[in-house]
């Protein structure tokens, strides 16, 4: 051991210690890794559920709930889906920086120029053009369509890969349920976790849509509603809904500042009051604006069961630390002689503490690596049993760092008591 550094010396001693009792240290690493791995996997789920999907503007984006149901049996709360004319009234107000009015639909898509008849079942967002700027949708090629009516579409990265092998498909034509629409924009891979613009109906962890089509065109083409809708009247197709009491559109607005929020609130309330005065509904005026994080909270995006399981895994980790500590205790007890000897020949308590901590940190690093592998396996296993977790079960880089830190902290925590006991004795007690 020719090195000058005490750090290298302590690392060498730690490795020697591991070699002396490999089975014991393997068990300790496994014990801590399982605890850290399970907690990390749960934290990955919670992180995906609780994270802010658009932090740069989440406080300024508002979802609008309105209370304009036309009969005297209103829903308990203002509805998150709006009539066409109510939604358009919002879009046309001059109080917002931007807005998006949309509904979810679905079509079968194929390359119109391809000889293959293979069609892809595709999720559609029928929307006003403001959607792209409001959601910061990232474009790989081309740009957004500019009007709410036109035979143009934007497609997502996944569909572009499926049909065009990921190449620039701007200018190509897709046949969507028998209609030909031209691609004007292709998005980059776009993951919103949660899918803040449509967290209702259990869709918070769905992927972003495959196709974004102009709202008016989708209505004109009769693309059906693939989400919750309510109607107070009978209708045969969506193309009839513009002037009927059919509720299916969601509305988001972007406000430049908080002053605009109260102005918009007044605008909505006045609008509802006018409808009420005109006898269109009998309800109390109750319209709601929720920013992104408030809206996710209203929709209980963070699963309470996952939270409870995370809490349980914290307790489980505590048990793992206790077990690892119990395993380490005899190991450190057996090291009393060496501790006594080192103290006798000049090592201070601080030296011994640093040596012990170095061993713990090294143990923590090994634990961290195994824990992250186990965590990844736990998530893979979870997805096998619960496919709806697919878009949630992701170990982000910050989770990897957190996992390593957790492993270090638990490793140090589990060795504190054994370390204290090993250094507790009178130096001479172990030496003869």
């Amino acid at each position, binding site marked *: 051991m020719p090195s*000058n550094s005490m750090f290298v010396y302590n690392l060498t001693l730690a490795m020697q210690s591991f070699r002396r009792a490999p089975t014991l240290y393997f068990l300790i690493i496994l014990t801590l890794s399982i605890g850290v791995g399970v907690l990390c996997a749960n934290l990955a789920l919670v992180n995906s559920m609780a994270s802010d999907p658009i932090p740069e503007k989440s406080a300024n984006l508002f979802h609008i709930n309105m209370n304009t149901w036309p009969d005297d049996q209103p829903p308990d709360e203002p509805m998150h889906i709006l009539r066409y004319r109510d939604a358009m009234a919002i879009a046309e107000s001059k109080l917002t920086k931007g807005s998006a009015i949309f509904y979810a639909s679905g079509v079968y898509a194929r390359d119109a120029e391809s000889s293959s008849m293979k069609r892809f079942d595709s999720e559609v967002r029928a929307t006003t053009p403001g959607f792209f700027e409001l959601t910061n949708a990232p474009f790989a090629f081309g740009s957004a369509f500019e009007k709410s009516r036109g035979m143009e579409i934007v497609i997502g990265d996944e569909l572009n890969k499926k049909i065009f092998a990921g190449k620039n498909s701007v200018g190509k034509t897709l046949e969507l349920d028998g209609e030909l629409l031209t691609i004007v924009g292709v998005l980059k891979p776009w993951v919103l976790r949660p899918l803040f613009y449509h967290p209702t109906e259990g869709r918070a962890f769905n992927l972003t849509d495959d196709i974004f089509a102009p709202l008016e065109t989708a209505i004109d083409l009769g693309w059906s509603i693939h989400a919750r809708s309510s109607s107070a009247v009978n209708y045969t197709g969506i193309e009839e809904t513009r002037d009927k009491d059919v509720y299916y559109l969601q509305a988001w607005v972007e406000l430049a500042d908080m002053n605009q929020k109260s102005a918009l609130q007044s605008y909505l309330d006045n609008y509802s009051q006018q409808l009420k005065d005109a006898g269109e509904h009998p309800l109390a005026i109750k319209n709601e604006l929720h920013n992104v994080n408030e809206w996710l909270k209203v929709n209980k995006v963070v699963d309470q069961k996952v939270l409870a399981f995370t809490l349980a895994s914290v307790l489980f980790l505590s048990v793992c630390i206790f077990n690892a500590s119990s395993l380490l205790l005899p190991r450190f007890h057996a090291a009393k002689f060496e501790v006594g000897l080192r103290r006798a020949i000049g090592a201070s308590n601080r030296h011994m503490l640093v040596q012990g901590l170095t061993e713990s940190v090294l143990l923590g690093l090994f634990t961290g690596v195994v824990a992250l592998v186990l965590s990844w396996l736990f998530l893979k296993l979870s997805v096998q049993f619960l496919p709806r977790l697919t878009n949630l079960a992701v170990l982000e880089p910050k989770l990897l760092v957190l996992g390593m830190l957790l492993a270090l902290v638990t490793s140090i925590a589990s060795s504190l008591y054994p370390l204290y006991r090993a250094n507790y004795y009178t130096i*001479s007690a172990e030496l003869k």
Partner: protein
Amino acid sequence: MLNMNNISRIYQSDTIQTHALRDFSLKVNEGEFVAVTGPSGSGKSTFLNVAGLLDNFDRGQYELDGVSVQGLKDDELSRLRNEKIGFIFQNYNLIPDYSIFDNVDMPLRYRGFSASERKRRVEQALEKVGLASRLKYLPSQLSGGQQQRVAIARALAGEPKILLADEPTGNLDSLMARQVMEILHDLNKDGATIIMVTHDPDQAREVNRNVQVIDGQLADFKIYAPLDRTAENKGKTVSAAVSADVAEEMADA
């Protein structure tokens, strides 16, 4: 070199108070070789532990190489142990899976010497005890006497002011014990100050001064008079070299 005045060490259990050392005073000068003898449980080891700063004391004053040790913090005591004291234990206390080099190197690690300086000192210390060729051996590959010589090399490597030996030949046969004692005498001749706890009357007689501990105090009589280690006596067994004076003194005792 070592100056203890009225040192008391009391071990307290729930029901029993044991006075391991009571008003113990001893002065050891530089270059002396002092044997500490006494019956089992008399306080010899406690004295050595207190002298070596391995154990605290409850009352009294203790100066080691001009440094008063009362009230020193753990770091300061550790540094004193490292720089001024070399320990030789009865059980050698080598770490079994470290090489001879690494065992001797251990105290130097805590002194902050460079790698080259440590290597020089380890080789020099092992040279002194005749084991320079066994650097890479493990302790288990050496005889008991050789292991004790490694322990002596470890004590010497830091060039301490004083060597404290606790029955250094207690686990060795007579031939190996003789070799170890010769090394200690050679070190003393070169100027080392040595305090050795021993049960062996022959070894006690071989050294400059013998002190007797009884009931935690220095006895005020001598059992073993010093042996004349003059040239003509060297090489003889201790018994054969006992002077008439010593024999007389032993008879008196």
